[in-house]
């Protein structure tokens, strides 16, 4: 909006109004009065030194000038601003030249700056700078001190105004990236008197209860504002709280260009609340991908291990020592076969020589075999006979040879018959005259038992002597008892002598056995 002041009435107008104190005037009239008074009383080329603050560039520049006690709004039109030779920044100590007017539309006194000069830095910023240096010397700002942020916090404490836009930015970002990360909202005032202490106290509280609350990280954040608005986060107490916080802190205060103390001491500084949330929240999609890769690596690792092991086992089993059942026995069994072969050879050799010897002996024996001998002799006789026959054949008349052989056979046969007959006759004679037929006729032969001599005479026995009498069918034993009758020719037969045996002893009369036998009942053949 333009700030061209409306020219109001001149001194006359103002005098006439001022003169009428009991008159009711309009607001516009009042504005005009104020504006007029300012113009009257203040020089048009006013130069003011103060701290530039709340700077905002909207083509025309809008800011305030301040010191310890007072603040004045200022505006610098683009045409004038373009002439500014330094980079304007909040906290800078400047000399602004211009005039003061009353901006009726917005009801404020405005310092219209036509020229701006840099003087030195602002008080506040000077004080801040001193503080930062002091804490830097203490090591509060050291990079080495800063902790790493957790890759996957279970819960994040968000210290901010619960009504601010910063909180929504954080929560939305966290939900988009990884809803599994929980959020704990810690409401604080983020500007105004005492805000610094409140923020510090909240950081302490979260730090103490982090374990119980399951807090793995903290975000301290607020949206953009002037250096005064953000001043709470430049206070020493906040720096102390962050330093001693038990969990990592991410600070995102104001805009990119704003840097507060907390951001220098925090473990990480983020340009915006969204970026702070991004830093602390893992991306679910990439985590899932990572997990998949890990799983694949794990599986392939074990597969490779199993495959190697089974290859080793397979190779081992292919080795003949394991795969072929007889492998280990092959050597020993070969030796065994060789040994038994040698054994067999020597045994057979021994047997062979023995058998050979045996055969030789047998052959020698066979040469002396009777059958063989007889056969050999018979063969020789037949051979001779054959030769004889052949010779006879050759000499005798071939025609009559047949008759001759017949006659020969016949003669031989007759002769043979005659001989058999003669033989038979002799046998008969022999039978007649033999002792057996004599005995059969009743004659007996008596011998002494003691010496087997034949008894020819009755007088040659003594009583008690044992005798053996041979009859045709057997022997009779007897004992002589008593005396016998006279010996020569008395012709008396003695009394019968009782014998121990049932057989009767036939007294033999003194007749010689040889010669005639002449028993009346025994008529011999002769």
């Amino acid at each position: 909006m333009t700030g061209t002041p409306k020219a109001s009435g001149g001194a006359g107008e103002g005098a006439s109004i001022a003169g009428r104190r009991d008159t009711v005037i309009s607001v516009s009239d009042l504005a005009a009065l104020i504006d007029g008074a300012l113009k009257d009383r203040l020089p048009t080329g006013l130069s003011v030194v103060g701290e530039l603050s709340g700077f905002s560039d909207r083509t025309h520049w809008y800011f305030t000038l301040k010191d310890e006690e007072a603040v004045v709004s200022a505006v610098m039109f683009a045409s004038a601003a373009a002439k500014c030779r330094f980079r304007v920044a909040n906290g800078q100590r400047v000399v602004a030249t211009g005039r003061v007017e009353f901006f009726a539309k917005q009801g404020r006194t405005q310092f219209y700056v036509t020229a701006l000069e840099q003087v030195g830095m602002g008080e506040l910023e000077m004080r801040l700078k001193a503080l930062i240096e002091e804490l830097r010397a203490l090591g509060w700002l050291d990079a080495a001190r800063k902790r790493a942020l957790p890759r996957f916090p279970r819960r994040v404490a968000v210290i901010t105004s619960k009504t601010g836009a910063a909180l929504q930015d954080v929560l939305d970002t966290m939900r988009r990236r990884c809803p599994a990360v929980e959020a704990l909202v810690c409401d604080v005032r983020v500007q105004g008197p005492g805000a610094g202490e409140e923020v510090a106290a909240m950081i302490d509280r979260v730090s103490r209860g982090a374990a119980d609350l399951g807090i793995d990280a903290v975000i301290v954040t607020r949206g953009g504002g002037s250096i005064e608005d953000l001043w709470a986060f430049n206070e020493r107490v906040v720096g102390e709280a962050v330093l001693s916080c038990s969990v990592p802190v991410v600070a995102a205060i104001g805009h990119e260009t704003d840097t507060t103390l907390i951001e220098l001491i925090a473990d990480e500084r983020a340009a915006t609340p969204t970026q702070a949330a991004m830093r602390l929240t893992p991306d679910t999609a990439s985590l899932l991908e990572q997990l998949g890769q890990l799983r694949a690596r794990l599986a392939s690792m074990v597969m490779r291990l199993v495959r190697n092991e089974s290859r080793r086992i397979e190779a081992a089993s292919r080795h003949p020592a394991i795969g072929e059942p007889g492998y280990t026995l092959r050597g020993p069994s070969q030796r065994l076969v060789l040994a038994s072969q040698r054994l067999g050879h020597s045994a057979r050799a021994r047997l062979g020589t023995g058998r050979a010897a045996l055969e030789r002996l047998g052959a020698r024996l066979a040469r002396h075999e009777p059958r063989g001998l007889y056969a050999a002799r018979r063969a020789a006789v037949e051979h001779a006979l054959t030769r004889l026959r052949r010779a006879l054949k050759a000499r005798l008349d071939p025609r009559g040879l047949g008759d001759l052989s017949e006659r020969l056979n016949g003669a031989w046969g007759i002769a043979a018959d005659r001989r058999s007959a003669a033989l038979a006759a002799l046998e008969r004679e022999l039978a007649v005259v033999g002792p057996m037929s004599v005995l059969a006729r009743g004659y007996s032969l008596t011998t002494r038992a003691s010496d087997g001599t034949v008894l020819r005479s009755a007088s040659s026995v003594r009583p008690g002597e044992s005798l053996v009498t041979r009859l045709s069918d057997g022997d009779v034993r007897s004992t002589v008892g008593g005396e016998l009758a006279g010996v020569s020719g008395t012709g008396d037969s003695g009394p019968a002598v009782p014998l121990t045996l049932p057989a009767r002893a036939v007294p033999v009369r003194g007749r010689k056995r040889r010669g005639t036998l002449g028993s009346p009942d025994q008529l011999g053949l002769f």
Partner: protein
Amino acid sequence: MPPAKPNPDASANADIGAMSYEAAVAELEAIIDRIESGEIGLEESVRAYERGVALQARCKSILAQAEQRVTELGGA
């Protein structure tokens, strides 16, 4: 193929259910390194593999939670 047998080490892997994502994934990576290094034998590798699978399942279940949980810290 790792042998499929009833898991006798169920009790050994029971602690996984309460592990944080970070702890679980860290152990999973450590297991893979150990198996890869070949320091441990076949049997132990298979047991480690089983634990690795359980850890990975835990991680997946954590990520599967789709609803953001927001709570507010009560008064001081």
